[in-house]
Each structure stands twice: as structure tokens, then as C-alpha cells.
């Protein structure tokens, strides 16, 4: 026999101002099954919780209904409260009379009527609530970090320092990421590679870190604490265990015309290559698209000069299967393709460059040894135009289909480019066309002001309409509008630099699909809670580090990387995880074996098996039936509404319980 207690919360005035809480408590008294009801100012307070506990003991309550805020807020609080006095926590039901009632109504009469209806529905469901017990699963104490840029490296280091094993999977032949390609960093102007290469070395030398460079994640199975990941180790054609990184092969390789992606294709490299001097691991890689031996069968020079016999033209991609407890996405960013912005003539002139290309042109390790020259004729530019927000902050009706968001770092790196350029070449004229200059951050605005006041960089609020390569002068005719002076400008520029929008790396979406981690329309991973859980994915066991979650600069990325590591450490410190008992299960006698539930399950929790059944007529029959892996099931309920026979049901939200709620509301 159910003995239900109803506890109506005022939530101060949040509920009480538009719901007559006393009337709700009074109405509860006449609902069948309810033996006690009361109201209280703050049910979630310690006194409120004690009121519930005392009443359970005094009146011998079997079920508790709390009419309060959304169960997302305090269901856990109340469940713990009743559990502390020995009641099964799933005997508690929360009626949301705040978010779904008092906050959306102004008329107290209407609000009260609705609150009573919601209370009745919750009582109807509580009547059918049964005790549930959560199971537990062990945790594999190893983490996977996908992406070896600054975000991934920092996360891996922090996890590894805590004593856990970490694997980094990086698609490029070396870790280091975009930060290793940058020249200097704002606003301190310290050399980017001087600060990132020690990190790379630290990662490479850490006893708890394994780097799988030139590798990709191809499959993710399992669930929090128990992931099984397939890692594709792309064939380098160079034996990692033998290569010493001496570079003899590179020197002798006859194939010299391979665009060097490390230098943003501004110069060429060989078909066998090490991206840059400080690469980790420092192992040569053969580019199968260009290698003469692999493509024509003739050559084999690298194999002849290699002192350790490391070259293997027969190498094949290899696949590893590794178990992990937690996975961190740190896939980073790339610049959008600016060639579709015809007006900036990126495709028509080598002197129109992206900001990342400009970084390489400024870098001492870059294609020009740090000597800033025009890619077209090798002369020093005297006038440079920087265009901000190329493809960022675009509205939906923009013809280019650019990004609606602000890429966050462009204002600052452009100021950096301007300052560095003026530092090296003081007679350069620099124009920056901007929509807004956004410089929130420690020492950021000071830095920008230095560019304007000290270095005399011409900041012009306005837009560049057209960049036209002038064949006669060899310059770029820039036509622009100054929106403050309301006048048209014509600038003869030697170079144009595009601050192109940054977008999540193209590998992020396929990865999100493998991880079943939600993403937004811009392909940023969605955090579990925008404010309170910013480094966790909504999918348990998946963590987010760096740009893949949203635009960030380096210090923010490093902070978030550490935060993600802290969450991973918290998970890996546990020996086992308590599951959610509100999971689906199938009534095998009713299951048709139709596979519709398997098809709609977003978590891959449902499998089918052929099972032997003893039939009522004493015959044996093999039937195909669904079975749910309770550790993988997240309790979303998609299967229960798909199942035509009603065989699939969700514990804690059974079809009968939901029907009872609907009946209480509608009948």
C-alpha cells in the first residue's frame, strides 16, 4: 500500500508569488494515496530536507513527491535526503512547479491550478515507482587525448603528472600543433616555438605518455570508463624504432617539389620529410603522394642512404585497439578557405596571404628565414593592409556562408603582426581595417594601444570592398571605406593580410560522430553545461580541451586543457563507476526482433541475439530478441517510443508511469 507524502516548496517567492503553495498542499490531501502534505519556504535547505526525512519516519511514507524546481536542479539533493534514512532514492518524484509553472505564469489562480495538476501527475507516477538499484562498472585507468597541439599536450601532461597513462593521437607526423607554427605570441611577444618546443620535449620524454603521431582514431566503442578505441597508424614507410632523425634521406631525396604544409605551402619540401627541426617524434615520413619509389617503383635513394635501414616501402597502415577510461577531444582549429572571397583576390595574387601564412613569413624558421618579403617578387613590402573578420561575424544572408561567431584571436594577432612588422621595418605603412577591435584580456588593450599610439599603425573602422592586383605597378589596389570619416579610400598596397575565420578542424565532426558527442551547427563540441561544466561533453567520459569547444587563445586553451585533465584525473581515480538505473530493458517475450530500437539508439546500447525460449506448449523456439547494455544506455527513451509492441521499457519512466501521468493531467 502506497503512503505518499507531498512537499510543496515556496522557493522563497519564486514559486509562492504565482502559486498558492498552501492550496497545492491542501489539494494534495484529497489525492488518493497521499497521507501527508505540507509546504515549506525552502525545501532544499537543510531544514526542508529534515522536514521530509522526519515526515517519512513519522508517517511511514513509502513515496515522496516534492513540488519544487526542475529535477535538474535538486532531484539529486532530495534523493540523497531520502536515501539517508533508508528509502530507495527512486521512490522520490519531483513535480516541477517552478520552471514549468510559476516562472511562466503571471496569474496566481492559473498558476495554482496548473501546480495542482502537475502535483497530481507526479503523485500518479510516484504510485507506480519501484525501488531501483544502480549497477557499477570498472574504470580503465588510461586516457586518450585526440590532438597533439598545445591543448592536447597540456591535458596529457597534467594527466600523466597525476600518475595515469595517457596516449596522444595526432594526425600529423609531429605533435606541436598550430602553436609551433606561430612566430611570436601576444601580448608578451615571446617566441612561440621557444615556449612550445620544451612542452613537446616534455611530452615526448614523459614516462606516462605514449605519442601516436601520424595516426587517426577510426572507431570508438564502449562507454565511460570502458572505451575501446581503434587507432590507425598510417604507414610512414619509415620504421619508427630505427629512424634516428639524422636527415640524410631528406638531403638526398630527389623529389624537391612538394608543397610544405608546415610553411603553409609557401615553399617546397622533399617527398621524405621531417616537418621541422624540433619535431617530436623526430622521425622521417615518406609522403606517399609524391614519393617516386612508391609511385613509379624507381628511385629508392633514401633506402640506400639510410644508415639504420629504417626505410620500408612495403609498410602498411596498422590498426591498434586500445582500452581507455576517458577520452579528451583536442582537435583544434584550421583557417577557413579564403579562396571563395573573390573580392580579396587571394587566388589571384601571391601577395594576398592569410594571417597564418604571414606568421610563417615572419618566422625565423619560416621559408624566408624571418625576412619579411613579398611572395611574388621577394621585395620588402612598404605598405601592408590587414583585413579583419574575413569570414567571421557573418550574418546568415551573407553570400559567402561564413562563420557567425567571432574567432576571438584575430584582433590581437593582427596588432602583434603590426607591431612586429613596424619593429623590424619601421618605414612600413600599415593599415588595419576592422569592424570592432576586441581586446578584453590581461594587457590586451594596452598592447593594441601600443600599436596605435606608439607604432602609429593606421586602424580604420571600415571594410575593404575590393583588392585588385595591378599588373602595371605590381601592387595591390585596395579599395576601402572609412566608416568614421564616411569616405572612400584607395590604397596601393604591397601586401594584403587576411585575418580569416578560424573553424574547428575538419576531423572534429567525424570524431564527434564516433564519440556520440554533441556538436553545435558550427562544429564546435557542445559542453555539458555552458556555465558549470565547460570542459565536459554531454556524453559521459568525453572531455573537451582547446579550440574544439570554442574560440580561444593560448592561455585560455592551456587553462581549459588543465581543467579537462582535472576532470579526467577525477574519473580515473575511481575504481568503478556507479551507473544510472533508469535504463531501458526489453521484455523478451514481447520483443518481435524487428531491430527498430537498435536503429534509433544513439548510444549503440542495443544488440540483438538469437535466444532459446521454452514456449508455453513445451516446445523450444529460437527467437531474435533485443537486449540492452545497461552500462551504455543513457536512458533517453528513444527505443521505448519506437518499439511497436511496447516490449522496450525504461526503468524509472515506464510506459505505465508516463501513461499514469498523462491520465492524471487529462482525465
Amino acid at each position: 500500500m502506497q503512503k505518499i507524502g507531498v512537499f510543496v516548496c515556496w522557493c522563497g517567492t519564486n514559486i509562492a508569488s504565482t502559486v498558492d503553495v498552501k492550496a497545492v498542499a491542501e489539494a494534495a490531501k484529497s489525492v488518493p494515496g497521499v497521507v501527508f502534505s505540507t509546504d515549506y519556504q525552502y525545501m532544499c535547505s537543510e531544514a526542508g530536507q529534515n522536514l521530509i526525512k522526519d515526515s517519512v519516519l513519522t508517517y511511514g511514507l513509502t513515496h515522496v513527491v516534492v513540488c519544487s524546481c526542475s529535477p535538474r536542479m535538486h532531484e539529486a539533493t532530495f534523493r540523497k535526503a531520502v536515501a539517508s534514512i533508508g528509502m530507495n532514492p527512486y521512490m522520490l518524484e519531483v513535480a516541477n512547479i517552478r520552471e514549468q509553472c510559476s516562472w511562466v505564469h503571471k496569474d496566481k489562480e492559473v498558476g495554482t491550478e496548473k501546480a495542482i495538476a502537475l502535483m497530481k501527475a507526479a503523485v500518479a507516477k510516484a504510485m507506480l515507482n519501484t525501488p531501483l538499484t544502480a549497477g557499477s562498472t570498472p574504470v580503465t585507468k588510461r586516457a586518450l587525448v585526440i590532438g597533439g597541439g598545445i591543448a592536447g599536450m597540456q591535458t596529457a601532461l597534467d594527466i600523466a603528472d597525476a600518475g595515469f597513462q595517457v596516449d596522444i593521437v595526432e594526425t600529423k607526423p609531429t605533435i606541436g600543433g598550430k602553436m609551433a607554427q606561430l612566430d611570436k605570441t601576444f601580448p608578451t611577444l615571446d617566441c612561440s616555438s621557444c615556449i612550445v618546443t620544451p612542452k613537446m620535449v616534455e611530452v615526448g620524454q614523459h614516462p606516462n605518455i605514449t605519442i601516436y603521431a601520424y595516426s587517426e582514431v577510426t572507431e570508438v566503442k564502449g562507454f565511460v570508463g570502458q572505451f575501446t578505441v581503434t587507432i590507425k597508424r598510417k604507414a610512414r614507410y619509415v620504421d619508427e624504432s630505427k629512424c634516428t632523425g639524422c636527415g640524410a634521406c631528406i638531403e638526398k631525396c630527389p623529389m624537391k617539389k612538394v608543397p610544405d604544409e608546415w610553411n603553409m605551402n609557401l615553399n617546397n619540401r622533399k617527398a621524405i620529410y621531417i616537418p621541422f627541426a624540433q619535431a617530436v617524434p623526430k622521425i622521417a615520413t615518406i609522403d606517399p603522394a609524391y614519393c617516386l619509389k612508391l609511385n613509379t617503383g624507381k628511385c629508392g635513394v633514401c633506402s640506400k642512404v639510410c644508415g639504420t635501414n629504417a626505410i620500408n616501402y612495403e609498410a602498411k597502415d596498422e590498426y591498434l585497439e586500445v582500452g581507455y577510461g576517458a577520452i579528451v577531444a583536442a582537435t583544434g582549429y584550421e583557417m577557413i578557405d579564403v579562396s571563395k572571397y573573390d573580392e580579396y583576390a587571394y587566388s589571384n595574387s601571391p601577395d594576398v596571404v592569410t594571417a597564418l601564412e604571414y606568421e610563417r613569413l615572419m618566422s625565423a624558421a619560416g621559408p624566408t628565414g624571418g625576412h619579411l618579403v613579398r611572395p611574388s617578387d621577394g621585395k620588402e613590402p612598404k605598405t601592408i593592409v590587414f583585413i579583419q573578420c574575413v569570414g567571421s561575424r557573418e550574418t546568415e544572408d551573407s553570400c559567402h556562408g561564413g562563420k557567425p561567431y567571432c574567432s576571438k584571436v584575430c584582433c590581437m594577432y593582427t596588432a602583434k603582426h603590426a607591431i612586429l612588422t613596424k619593429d623590424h621595418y619601421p618605414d612600413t605603412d600599415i593599415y588595419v581595417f576592422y569592424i570592432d577591435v576586441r581586446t578584453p584580456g590581461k594587457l590586451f588593450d594596452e598592447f593594441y594601444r601600443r600599436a596605435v599610439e606608439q607604432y602609429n599603425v593606421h586602424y580604420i573602422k571600415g571594410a575593404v570592398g575590393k583588392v585588385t592586383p595591378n599588373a602595371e605597378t605590381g601592387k595591390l589596389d585596395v579599395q576601402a571605406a572609412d566608416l568614421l570619416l564616411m569616405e572612400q579610400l584607395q590604397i596601393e598596397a604591397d601586401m594584403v593580410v587576411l585575418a580569416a575565420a578560424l573553424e574547428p578542424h575538419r576531423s572534429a565532426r567525424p570524431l564527434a560522430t564516433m564519440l556520440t558527442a554533441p556538436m553545435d551547427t558550427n562544429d564546435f563540441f557542445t559542453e555539458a553545461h555552458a556555465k558549470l561544466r565547460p570542459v565536459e561533453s554531454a556524453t559521459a567520459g568525453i572531455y573537451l580541451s582547446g579550440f574544439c569547444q570554442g574560440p580561444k587563445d593560448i592561455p585560455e586553451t592551456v587553462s581549459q586543457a588543465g581543467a579537462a585533465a582535472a576532470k579526467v584525473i577525477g574519473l580515473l581515480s575511481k575504481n568503478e563507476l556507479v551507473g544510472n538505473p533508469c535504463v531501458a530493458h526489453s521484455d523478451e517475450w514481447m520483443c518481435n526482433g524487428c531491430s527498430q530500437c537498435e536503429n534509433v539508439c544513439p548510444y549503440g546500447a542495443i544488440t540483438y541475439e538469437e535466444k532459446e525460449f521454452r514456449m508455453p506448449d513445451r516446445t523450444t523456439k529460437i527467437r531474435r530478441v533485443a537486449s540492452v547494455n545497461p552500462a551504455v544506455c543513457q536512458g533517453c527513451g528513444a527505443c521505448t517510443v519506437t518499439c511497436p509492441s511496447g516490449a522496450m521499457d525504461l526503468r524509472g519512466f515506464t510506459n505505465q508511469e508516463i501513461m499514469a501521468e498523462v491520465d492524471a493531467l487529462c482525465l
Partner: protein
Amino acid sequence: MQRELINRARELLADGTVDRVLGWQAGQFAYDITPAVFTDAGELEAHFVYNEFCADNLSKYLIKESEKEGKVLAFLKPCDTYSFNQLVTEHRIRREHVYVIGVESYGKADVEKLRARGISGITGVETVSGMLKVHTMYGDESVPLNEVMLDRCLTCKSKKHVVYDELIGEDGDVVADSGRFDMVEKLERMTAKERFSFWQGELSRCIRCNACRNVCPACTCENCVFDNPGSGLQNRAARDNFEEKLFHIIRAYHVAGRCTDCGECSRVCPEHIPLHLLNRKFIKDFNELYGPFQAGEVSGQMSPMCAYTETADPEASVVRKGGAE
């Protein structure tokens, strides 16, 4: 045609390809065709029939038949092949236990329409050069087949066999302008009140004989929700004085995306309720909302309600079948 079918069935039984044959036989009357399983040549010769009264969709019978040991030969008309595929997709039929012979069909006769023409005492039927020759106790009558066809055959969606191991007769094509949604469109143009009274008029005749459910090849649940007291639907359907509407609407929802529009529900309804219109409304909506979709057309293809598209959904967690697995 009947002779060819019997001969082929005998061959396949004789050479051991199949162990049983699922076909049709006459019931009490010649037009009273009923599905039947034959196990030897004698039975086939004595009882097997295939003529313009053989409207029954045999696919549903293959659920039980394919569970048994050995292989069963099934004769499937074009419309039946769609149901067959759908049931294979839902793992209800063990495909490897069935040998499918596609048989041509250009429409089946409606005995009521023959009766309406004053033809009675029917003893047999055959098609002779496009005309339906009806043998009766009072002599032969000849009528154009398309004038006495079942309504469902008049709006036939496809004369193509979407699955078969071999074919007897000719394979046809999907009928592009079947006009099968004309009546649905007419209903859509009605006001809600008119539509309600149309359905009230139709569904109120329902005697809850369950013929529609029992014949429906999409209604194959091990335990139908209407027979399961735990589902609570029985009582809910009975709570309303217009209970039939709930029965039929719930049934239409349950087969939505899986109904192949074979038309058996309306054919077997003793009250002549056009039940197929409910299903066709869903089919039409599917086509309009998710693009053209024909349940059963492709084996293994799930309905748009259970299928994911790689591009349409911004939430990566639901873009792929089976998620992480």
C-alpha cells in the same frame, strides 16, 4: 498460369529445393480463396489454385512458415513482395528459409462487384484475352476485369516484384500515376469537422472483429498492445464511446513507416471501412516530409522514422545509426 505454378512447385518439391509450398486453395466457395500450405504433388494437384480471386497477401504467413525447419516455396504477387521485404527487414521472416517465386498479377477481382452485376453461383474464374471469364452454375459470363477489380487494385502502386528467386510471368513497373492519394487529398481538403464526421461515419461501423489487424502484414507483434492488459490500451480504447477511432488510429500509428500499402485491411473489412486511407495519409506525409519512401521497396531499409541522415542533423550524437557502435 495456375498450371505453370503447380508444375514448378512440383519440380521444386521433387528436387528437394523446397519442403513445402505456400499458395492458395478454394474455400467453401470458388471465390472464397484461402492461403494454404501444400507438402506433396497430390495436394497441389487437388487443391492449389491461382486465379483472379487469389488476392490474399501470403507474406505474413511466412513468419510462421519460415520459422520451421526446411525451406518453403512462396508465390508472391508484386504487392506481396513489398510486404515480404519489409518483414525480412524487420527480421520477422527468415529469408534463407523461403524460396520466392514472383507471380504476375494485373489486378484481382472483387466478388462483390461481380454480384452487383447480378452474377451469382460462381464456380470459377479465368482471364481470357483481357476479359474476366466467370464460370457460374448458370453458364459463363464475361466482363472487363478492370470493371470488377478490387478497389485497391485500381490504385495499384506497383506491378514490379521487388524481390524474387525466380519469376513466372512478366515483371511490371512501378505505377507512377496510381492516383492512390487522390482520396487522401480529398480528405485533407475537408474541414476538421467534415473529416471527423467522415471518419465517425466509417469507423462507427467497426465491429472490432480484428480482421484488419490479423491480416495486416505489418501487424506482426508477438503480443499485440490491444491483447496486452499491461499496455493499458485496451481500457483506453474502450473508455470513449467512439472507441473504434482509437483502435484504428493507434493501429495506423503502429504501422506508420512500415505499412507497404498492400490494402489487405480494407479488403478483408466486413464493414467495408476504407482503413487503408489512414495508412495512406501517413505514407503521403512521409513522402512530403522526408522525401519519397516506399516501405518494403528495398530490403534492409528502415523507415525515415528510424533512419539517420549523415548531414541533416546538427547534433552529431544522432547522425549515425547505432551511435558509438
